[in-house]
């Protein structure tokens, strides 16, 4: 196994805790003898573990005090009395300094970033942006009213071929496409002749796509309609063709399209009513994790997005064994996917060649422009200008061999995209201080993609070397929706949102539960996260402490706010003790059984993800069998009974009180005051990392503890860094974790600012010499 990777899973302890220096004599340390006698059999000579014992390496982030307490309570397994008091203290000190602590791990080593390939997400984004680089960017106008621009035309056409009919036109912005005109006509501005009873409408604008995946659009209509998504020319095959309308009956026609998240796409819906009695048109969609709904106005805008190349190639999942996605493995399926996306891209480039290379068929300089385009394309794939000899290797031979320029371009695109210099970004650069390498690292960290025009030009002008310039670029780049998409990916991971994919609930106990409800809850959680992260303060603590929920009409009925009408709004819910993500009904529902709460699932989630502690796998797997308990017990009583054993309590002393704190929320996250006719008890005593006992009552105490907890901050910083940079934190300096966390604290726990610092850190990896 790769040693550098092994170290990367280390969990760090940062500045606040006492650091005992290197003056300790480990050879003659009294703890060493104890270790050899009582621990070595299972944990190995240097804490690496033994094959027989199946224990994890003795490395971690606990403080010495915490480690001592843990040994005192839980070690050696089944003989816990044999190593207590002074013995436990001594052996802990030895273990801590000999191999457990981060410093011990790092002794004499420099961790370097691994050469990794682009992850699936990075590959998709990079290829899309590589082609998009050659198109003019479009920016949404600020403060535009959400919705699509509708171009209305009313007429009195009764008979084909008669040109004596009258037509009147007007425009307006429609927040949604959801109209039942009945036998009437659209509401018209003043002065329009309302006797014109036939009409057609063309809605145009853009649609914002948050999450990468397959979107299913549906047109519901009695009449004729066509939908174009990411197709700018209405002569292209529509995403949905429902132009022919038999019998004036309501019908639904659907079309699926794969789209990359964090981007806006052009959308156009054409509609017409002709001599039919009634008119009705609705535009619906189903997001990757959603249920079918009218496309909400919040994702619609009136700007016309440019065409975006999107390949629907599916990549195999990236390695996640280190807790974050890394491009550290290759496989045949992956290679096939790389080949597929390269061919897709080549097709697209050739199909739009004149546009991308800014030429025309009869341009006398076409050939020259195509060659220049080919060289530029390759340069941007390598994320730096071509070096001497590279044009001769990557461009010229293809033009020499291919029969047509189009064929040559096809091969250039294939060659560039399958080249290791594109796929393994680090291999394109020869020295670490190369400003092009920094630009590449910055854009991968913020967008999972290649540098855009502004970053490229700044790099070419040598501006990245100026102090503060990298940070300035990072702030600029953070405003792009792709950056938000990437951060959303972190929350998906941190909050384990994929768990919700196969949730089911007892339909008698929870008739409210539905796919629609989960879809709404996911949207509610996304709105909550966006609201905090992309606000000015971007305060991490608010993720845990804010007492608000986003509810729409449907959710309002379920969660005790029946007065809410229509779409989502932010509602303060202090009485129920709602406190940030901890009590968000989406997570409470995901971490619960089909017919009841699950304090264990909730507790484990809080322990690992929110409070930032590590947990070992249970020594033996015990299934929770509801029917083996007397029926009148509460869930809390059952769990207490089940985990009573000492071996269990090593971890459940942490898990249970955290899980119990949420017992006021039922299996779909509604507030409750009783279970089995007994009042809910959400009190508990939490054994903290530093060995203290903390009385908690309800989730707000947990949130307050986590918001101030050093371990929680440290875990958040570490996980966010790994998601952002996809390399071990240690490869960016042995004290980078401390530095980032200190900055985080100093900046009022501002997440956006932390992200900028991380992106800059990504440009400064350790080098073999440092």
């Amino acid at each position, binding site marked *: 196994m790769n040693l550098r990777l092994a170290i990367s899973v280390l969990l760090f302890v940062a500045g606040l805790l006492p650091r005992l220096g290197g003056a300790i004599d480990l050879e003659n340390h009294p703890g060493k003898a104890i270790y050899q006698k009582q621990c070595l059999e299972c944990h190995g000579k240097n804490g690496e573990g033994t094959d027989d014992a199946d224990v994890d390496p003795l490395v971690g982030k606990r403080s010495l005090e915490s480690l001592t307490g843990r040994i005192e309570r839980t070690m050696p397994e089944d003989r816990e009395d044999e190593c207590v008091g002074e013995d436990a203290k001594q052996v802990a000190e030895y273990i801590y300094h000999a191999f457990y602590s981060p410093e011990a791990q790092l002794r004499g080593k420099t961790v370097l970033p691994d050469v990794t390939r682009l992850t699936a997400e990075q590959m998709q984004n990079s290829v899309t942006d590589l082609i998009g680089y050659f198109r003019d960017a479009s920016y949404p106008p600020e403060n535009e009213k959400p919705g699509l621009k509708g171009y209305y035309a009313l007429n009195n056409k009764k008979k084909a071929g008669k040109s004596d009919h009258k037509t009147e036109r007007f425009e307006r912005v429609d927040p949604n496409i959801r109209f039942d005109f009945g036998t009437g006509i659209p509401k018209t501005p003043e002065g329009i002749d309302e006797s014109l009873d036939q009409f057609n409408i063309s809605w145009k604008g853009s649609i914002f796509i948050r999450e990468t995946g397959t979107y299913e659009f549906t047109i519901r209509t009695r009449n004729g309609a066509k939908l174009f998504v990411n197709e700018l020319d209405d002569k292209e095959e529509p995403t949905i063709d429902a132009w*022919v309308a*038999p019998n004036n009956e309501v019908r639904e026609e659907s079309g*699926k399209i794969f789209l990359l998240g964090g981007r806006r796409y052009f959308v156009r819906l054409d509609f017409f009513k*002709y001599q039919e009695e009634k008119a009705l048109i609705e535009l619906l969609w189903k997001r990757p994790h959603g249920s079918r709904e009218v496309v909400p106005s919040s994702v619609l805008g009136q700007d016309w997005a440019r065409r975006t190349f999107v390949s*629907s190639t599916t990549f195999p999942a990236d390695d996640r064994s280190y807790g974050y996605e890394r491009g550290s493995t*290759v496989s045949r399926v992956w290679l096939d996917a790389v080949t597929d996306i390269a061919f897709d891209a080549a097709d697209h480039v050739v199909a739009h060649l004149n546009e991308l290379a800014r030429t025309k068929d009869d341009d006398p300089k076409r050939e020259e422009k195509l060659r220049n385009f080919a060289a530029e394309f390759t340069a941007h794939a390598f994320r730096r200008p071509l070096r001497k000899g590279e044009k001769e290797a990557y461009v010229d031979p293809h033009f020499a061999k291919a029969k047509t320029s189009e064929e040559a371009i096809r091969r250039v695109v*294939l060659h560039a995209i399958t080249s*290791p210099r594109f796929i393994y970004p680090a291999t394109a650069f020869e020295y670490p201080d190369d400003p092009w390498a920094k630009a590449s690292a910055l854009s991968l960290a913020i967008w999972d993609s290649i540098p855009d025009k502004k970053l490229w030009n700044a790099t070419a002008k040598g501006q990245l070397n100026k102090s503060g310039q990298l940070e300035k670029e990072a702030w600029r780049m953070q405003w792009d929706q792709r950056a938000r998409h990437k951060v959303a990916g972190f929350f998906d991971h941190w909050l384990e949102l994929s768990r919700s994919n196969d949730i089911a609930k007892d339909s008698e106990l929870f008739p409210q539960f539905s796919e629609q409800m989960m879809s709404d809850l996911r949207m509610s959680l996304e709105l909550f996260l966006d609201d905090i992260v992309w606000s000015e303060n971007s305060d991490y603590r608010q993720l845990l402490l804010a007492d608000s929920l986003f509810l729409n009409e449907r959710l309002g009925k379920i969660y005790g706010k029946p007065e809410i009408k229509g779409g989502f709004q932010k509602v303060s819910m202090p009485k129920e003790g709602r406190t940030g993500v901890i009590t968000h009904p989406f997570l409470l529902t995901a971490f619960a059984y089909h017919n009841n709460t699950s304090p264990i699932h909730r507790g484990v989630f809080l322990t690992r993800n929110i409070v930032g502690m590590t947990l070992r796998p249970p020594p033996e797997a015990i299934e929770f069998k509801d029917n083996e308990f007397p029926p009148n017990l509460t869930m809390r009583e059952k769990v207490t009974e089940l985990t009573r054993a000492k071996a269990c309590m090593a971890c459940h002393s942490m898990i249970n009180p955290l899980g119990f704190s949420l017992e006021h929320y039922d299996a779909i996250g509604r507030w409750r005051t009783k279970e089995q006719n007994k009042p809910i008890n959400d009190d508990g005593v939490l054994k903290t990392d530093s060995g203290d006992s903390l009385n908690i009552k309800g989730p707000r105490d947990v949130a307050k503890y986590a918001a101030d907890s050093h371990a929680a901050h440290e875990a958040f910083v570490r996980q966010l860094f790994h998601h952002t940079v996809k390399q071990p934190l240690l490869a960016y300096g042995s004290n980078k974790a401390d530095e980032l966390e200190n900055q985080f604290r100093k900046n009022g726990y501002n997440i956006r600012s932390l992200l900028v610092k991380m992106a800059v850190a990504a440009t400064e990896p350790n080098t073999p010499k440092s």
Partner: protein
Amino acid sequence: MNPSIERRRFLKQLGVSAGAAPFLSGLPGFGSLMAGDAKGPKKRLIVMFSPNGTIPEEFWPETAEGKYEFKRILKPLEPYKNRVAVLKGLSNKIGGDGDRHMRGMSCLLTGKELFPGNIQGGSDSPAGWASGISIDQELKNFFQANDATRTRFGSLEFGVAVPNRADPWTRMSYAGPNQPVAPIDDPKKMMERLYGRMEDKENLVSLVDDVQKDIEKVSARLGSEDRQLLNEHLNLVRELEKELSQQDENKELAHPMPEIDPKVELVNDNTPRISRIQMDLMVNALANDMTRIATLQYMRSVGQARMNWLGVEEGHHGLSHEPDNNADAKEKLTKINEWFAGELAYLTKRLSETPEPGADGSMLDYTTIVWLNELGKGNSHTLDNIPFVLIGGEKATGFKMGRQIEFPKGTPHNRLLLSIAQSMGHDIQSFGTDMFCTDGALNLA
């Protein structure tokens, strides 16, 4: 439907993807080709459509005094005269909504009314799609339901210069009520459908070579640990290269993939080229038993093809409206229809030159071609006396060819659809609108 989602993945198409079955067994009709001759002769059907009516004087053969002589329009089919039957007197009797072009087109193979709808033609009331299945799709379902006649595709719908719009004028095949089937008019797409993206194979072979060199070059500068990942990558590329070279050794298709370049720009003036490529692909697909049903749709009803290659600059549909006394228009329309017959002759020739796999004779002996039009005559928009032509297939159908058969005026064309179905072994007694089938199938034997 978004084309990129529907597109099957490139390497899978090449059959070289990991875990894919060996190249050939993944190919169409391989199994049924082998098992083919177990149950009687193969029966195939090709339907060819050309639009906007014909010029009757130049179309209907001279039959006075027992003669059977082709006039200008059918002249290109002269070499196959004794294999051609011309059916006179058939009408598309389907009434209801939609103008006659629409009904002519969308009721031609369905024999059933259009739904009322929102599409307005040049006259009559607006209409929607056809309310029934078309005969080609009916026979497809019939063939696909039986092991002995099932093929990989069941049916293939070819188009030539069909405009990219979906309405009752552009669709003649229907999988069911309200379910029009779009023809594929891009030979490149058809080639991909039939054989995968083989034309990209050459690119892939040279690419695999380039990538290996690149990886070796880049790896040389890396430490041994980092090199490991790139080495694995390199091994995978080598594996792919090996599979590609092995494929070349396997060429066991009954009829190898046609050596044609399907990349042709879909513009009006390329129509003659597209037409031939499509027919070559069709004959090849039939020979490899990928399908036994094929349609070939030229343009669309009301199509405005400008046949510059014939010296005709006006749009086809516009010309077809010219009155009978416009000699120039008549001449041009004759030329246009002659050209369609010439294309049909090419298809006939290809089939007659291709030996029937696993049986005596040529493919033409087992393939019935039906050439039809949505109108009888362009300027009157009549649905009477539609020019129906049958060619070949005698060994499969027992039809008697080499003659013009005159039916009483106004014989519903549903009865022809019925005859075709029965000749293919599908024993149905009614097709489309029942009232037009009461007299049963036409006797063509």
